[in-house]
């Protein structure tokens, strides 16, 4: 069964066409990485999946039904930054997800309900390796730990789809490797469907099960925004020959390795 289906999706802002004729089927459990030059519409694509943007034309389906037009708990998200709440410590950042869902009026759980929710939150923080930092505020955490916290937060709702918007872009190469291991582990163990936008071609090439490259197929030099981007490569990862990598690199102009091997 396909988790996400795009049928002939267009996205335009006024006369600027960002995406045109995008068709895609993504099955449940896939780990899709999305790369492309800046301004190629990959962030717009992610925002449409998130419900922050609606397609101008075409059909966007989740499990066969139209995608809700606003963000909701069925789609988790981790942004590059500002993903966590600065006024809550790590534990409360995760616990608040439970409280949003179960205390519609006060936003706070009490007594036994709170203890259950707290245990769940602590277990989630342990799963991402933050058991030592329960009482720390985000500004006391390193960049990598903040992203771990954001992931824990997003997973509290057991989302059908997890959207990652350049989540490791601001991290050091070493930390990024740890984060790759973490996200792969969580993906396998929890059966997530993941969309990850990245500008690191190598990350896109080797992390997921499927690589999408967004680029403009048609160009009008007089009107650079007259045509939108489309998916120019849709490659199952695992059959990744270096030639294709080089080809995509030439096409998109993206850096190959920001990560030392």
């Amino acid at each position, binding site marked *: 069964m396909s988790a996400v289906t795009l049928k002939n999706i267009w996205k335009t802002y006024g006369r600027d066409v960002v995406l045109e004729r995008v068709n895609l089927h993504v099955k449940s459990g896939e780990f899709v990485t999305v790369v492309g030059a800046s301004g190629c519409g990959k962030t717009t694509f992610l925002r449409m999946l998130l419900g922050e943007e609606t397609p101008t034309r075409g059909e966007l389906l989740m499990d066969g039904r139209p995608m809700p037009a606003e963000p*909701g708990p069925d789609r988790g998200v981790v942004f590059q930054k500002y993903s966590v709440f*600065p006024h809550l410590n790590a534990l409360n950042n995760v616990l*608040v997800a439970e409280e949003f869902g179960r205390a519609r009026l006060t*936003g706070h759980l009490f007594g036994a309900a709170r203890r259950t929710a707290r245990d769940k939150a602590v277990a989630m923080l342990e799963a991402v390796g933050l058991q030592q930092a329960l009482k720390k*505020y985000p*500004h006391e955490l390193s960049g990598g730990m903040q992203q771990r916290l954001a992931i824990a937060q997003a997973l509290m709702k057991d989302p059908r789809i997890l959207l990652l918007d350049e989540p490791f872009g601001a991290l050091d190469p070493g930390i990024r490797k740890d984060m790759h291991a973490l996200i792969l582990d969580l993906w396998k163990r929890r059966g997530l469907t993941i969309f990850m936008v990245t500008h690191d071609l190598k990350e896109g090439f080797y992390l997921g099960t499927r690589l999408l490259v967004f680029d403009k197929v048609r160009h009008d030099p007089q009107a650079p925004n007259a045509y939108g981007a489309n998916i120019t490569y849709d490659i199952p990862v695992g059959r990744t020959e270096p030639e294709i990598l080089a080809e995509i690199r030439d096409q998109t102009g993206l850096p190959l390795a920001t990560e030392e091997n």
Partner: protein
Amino acid sequence: MKRFINQRPRRAVGYLLGLLPFVLLLLAYMAASAARLAENPNDPLLPSLGTLFDTFWRLATEPSRRTGELVLWVDTAASLTRLGLGVVISMAMGLLVGILAGLIPYAGRTLSPLITAVAMIPPLAVLPILFITFGVGELAKVVLIVFGIAPFIIRDVKQRVEELPTEQLIKAQTLGASTWLIILRVVLPQVVPRLLDATRLALGAAWLFLIASEAIAATEGLGYRIFLVRRFMDMATILPYVVWITLLAFLLDVALRFANRMLFPWYGGRRG
């Protein structure tokens, strides 16, 4: 020798430098006062420090012959009550209207032009209207303070709400939060420390409007007293009152800053 922009005083030197202008002003006053009093011991314009202190002490500790009250404390209580009411009401309005206008597009479109327009009206220009409408009692004075500072606080809160990263609001929605819960758990806690900052900045204006309204119509209050004794050129009362008002304003500012540090430990760190 280093450039001036690179020369920094040591800690102790820094404090002494900060104290220096005060000491110089005080010395200048003492010299001028002594010179005038040497010519005419009854000169009321620049009383000696001793006279100033004695007057202050008398107002603070001896019951007034006319009313039997301790004048300084009656005035202080009356003024602080008005100021406090005005400021607290303005803060409440700032939170309510600022959050609604900053977070909810329909509310923002409806309220923002009105807030901008009201903020343009010079508050003292409407003081006569307030006195006519609300009478010369406490209400008009409190309303003047609210009129003077609430638009500023509302706009500041609204701007802070708009500055919250969109990512946070989206994240909250993906965690299942309703508009109400986003206000309660995401926006409100992050805006309250900003509200205290805005209030600190608005306090100066609040004092201005308080003293202006007391000067025009009141039966007690710090501003009332100053303008009452002005008729007798009673500098021995006015000067200590001014210092007293300054001290109160300073203490309020320190209290708000302290509250922010104690209540919101995350607030200072997040800017780093």
